[in-house]
């Protein structure tokens, strides 16, 4: 079992974000997650990758409950879960080689990983991962010198390099042009298939989801609206899923007076 949600829900600041989630992904499954913005796709993925703790029910990635583990086993579990984030989590000024190599930090000793900051670890492996996203020539560049799309692909290269058992992707192609987007979805899907890993990807584009994923989960208002094989997803279902897309504008915060700048404190 690669990923299981048992009656899982998430309530943040008294507001239910997700509720009553019940589904399981077998080893090697490939699932697309679709739904209107605000439906809870990102939160669901964050429950799956252990960054968020369910407030109801349990979430068990790779057959283990992360919230019952001691630090060592927890780190080991997390090392086998890889996530592509919507905004690539790359520190400014970090070099691409380290940004990608960071995918395998969990398997290194603390000292080894600190040393690697000075002398990058395994540039050959990193460069292979980068070649797959067509960025091998930027390996020694700083991340903040890349375009948004390139940074997105560095984030993908990191997960490819990590080679996790459970691969999660949160709108991984939102910053890419349509052709590159399709190539990338295909790349991730093929990589997962080749390694027998499980893939769950949220997508804004329904077409991409239907084209590459055998199973589609539709999420609406924090609940699973449907969980069906591709063939069973009709255009009515899609229309209902996105119907009257609600927009809940966040209350605009009136900014208070700003604090004394640090440069005026001595």
């Amino acid at each position, binding site marked *: 079992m690669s990923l299981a949600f048992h009656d899982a829900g998430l309530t943040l600041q008294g507001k239910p974000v997700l509720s009553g989630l019940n589904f399981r992904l077998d080893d090697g499954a490939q699932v697309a997650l679709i739904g209107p913005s605000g439906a809870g796709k990102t939160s669901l993925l964050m429950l799956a990758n252990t960054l968020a703790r369910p407030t109801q029910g349990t979430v068990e990635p790779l057959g283990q409950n992360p919230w019952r583990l001691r630090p060592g086993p927890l780190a080991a579990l997390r090392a086998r879960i890889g996530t592509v984030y919507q905004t690539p989590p790359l520190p400014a000024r970090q070099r691409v080689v380290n940004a990608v190599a960071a995918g395998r930090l969990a398997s290194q000793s603390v000292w080894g990983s600190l040393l690697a*900051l000075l002398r990058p670890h395994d540039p050959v492996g990193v460069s292979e991962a980068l070649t797959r996203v067509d960025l091998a020539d930027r390996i020694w560049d700083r991340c903040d010198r890349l375009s948004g799309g390139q940074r997105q692909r560095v984030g993908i290269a990191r997960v490819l390099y990590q080679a996790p058992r459970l691969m999660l992707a949160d709108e991984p192609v939102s910053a890419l042009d349509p052709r590159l987007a399709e190539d990338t979805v295909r790349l991730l899907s093929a990589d997962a298939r080749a390694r027998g890993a499980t893939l769950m990807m949220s997508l804004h584009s329904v077409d991409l989801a239907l084209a590459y994923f055998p199973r589609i989960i539709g999420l609406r208002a924090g609940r699973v609206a449907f969980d069906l094989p591709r063939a069973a997803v009709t255009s009515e279902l899609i229309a209902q899923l996105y119907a009257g897309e609600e927009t809940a504008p966040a209350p605009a915060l009136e900014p208070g007076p700003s604090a004394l700048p640090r440069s005026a404190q001595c």
Partner: protein
Amino acid sequence: MLSHPRDPALLPRLGWTLVLLALLAPTFVYTHFNPALLLQPETLGTLGHFVAGFFPPAHEAGFLLEVARETITTLAVATAGLGMALFLGAPLAFVTTRALDLPMSAEARRHPLARGLRPILRGLMIGLRGVPEIVWALLFVRAVGLGSLPAVLALGLAYGGMLGKVYAEILESQPDGPTRALTAQGAGRIQVFFWGLWPQALPELVSYTVYRWECAIRASAVMGFVGAGGIGQLLDTSIKMMNGSEVSTLLLVFLLLVIGTEAISALARRGLESRYGSGVLAAAVATAIGASLAWLWPAWAAAGADLKALWPFAASFFPPEMGAAIWGDLARGTLETLAISILGTTLAFAGGGLLALPASGRFGMPAKAATRLLLNALRGVPDLLWAALAVLALGLGPAAGVLALALHTTGVLGRLFAETLENAPPLPEQALLAAGAGRAAAFGHGVLPEVIVQWLAYTLYRWENNIRIAAVLGIVGAGGLGQQLYLALSLFQEKTAATVIVAMLLLSWLAEETSRHTRLRLAH
């Protein structure tokens, strides 16, 4: 006839004005601050005589040699002190920052000991930075002897606490995407820090550290007022002996020092952006700290300072004096400190507001350049040095403290106010001008409402700072709690000194709380 309904805001506004006046009026009495005194012929005569002595600046070879030596000592003290602060502050920040607190399972929660440690360390940092560095210096002068070692220890402790807090805040203000992602992959706390936070936080960390170094140099230059070496010691003697020509040489050197350090720090910030910048910078810092220690070491060794004396010394402060005799003095000192800080800050608010108009370019470029220069000069001279000079003008006592605070803070606030003015949207004022309003009216209705809350907030922040400074100005004879602290330490009454320090900390805590609440009210 039309009957006007009353303005509902009228009474509260009137009330607040009365409260403010009620607060301000006694401050004049308590501090004996009388601006007219500044213009009295005797004062002007004394000042004129003193300032006339500025020319020509002292330039005998022997004196200049001594100045050069003490200038290097001042630099070395600041650098070594900051080095110590780094050793202290960086680990403190790493342990206490919330930036690395990422989701953990119930079982993986930190050890209770580690969890208990954190509030203790936070408290330690508050204590370290709550006591002003000059007070630390005064204490260490007593504990380990005179010279530069107490100054280094004082800077190290006070700035260590400050760096610890600000580093932690800088780390917390970084985008948390990278750290969360690394945690989700199973990286440990140290790995997450170096791979996820360090690369993006580095420029801000370095820039703040370099800025602190500038502060350290100014602080180190006045440490001499309590016998902790550097050019401050020469200044102290020259001012006490009213030797104008020496004072002018020293002020010139001090000014050059401040300008020089600003240039170096600008260079360091730029250097960081270049390819090998970080490496070069790290090497330069290590060399500078090493060279500083090498320069200071012979004097430390010769003075035979022994740090073992610290523990019995620290123990002699406990328990703080609580006898009835001390309360009267303490109340008088506290009121005086409070009055100095309130009046000084209020005057600075007025002065800063006035100078901000030309400084923001409202009266043309030449006026802007000239005012900026003036503001920089006001700000560049540390408050303690202003106080030593103000004592000459107004005589000993709290009035000199008021003047010193007002001058220095005018420099700080003037610049901030000018920046606020420059950043204010121009449209409201332009619209009023276009509608035929006069310049003053357009400013009053189009700009002032936009900036006033920010100005008040800045002033309140600065007041928190000033109350700490007002508490130490007594060290150079400008009244307040500082004088009592100095006296108690001179007479080996450490327990009394402890009570005075506690009073200082309490006062500064009260000021912070008052200021925070007032700012919250302002924001609404």
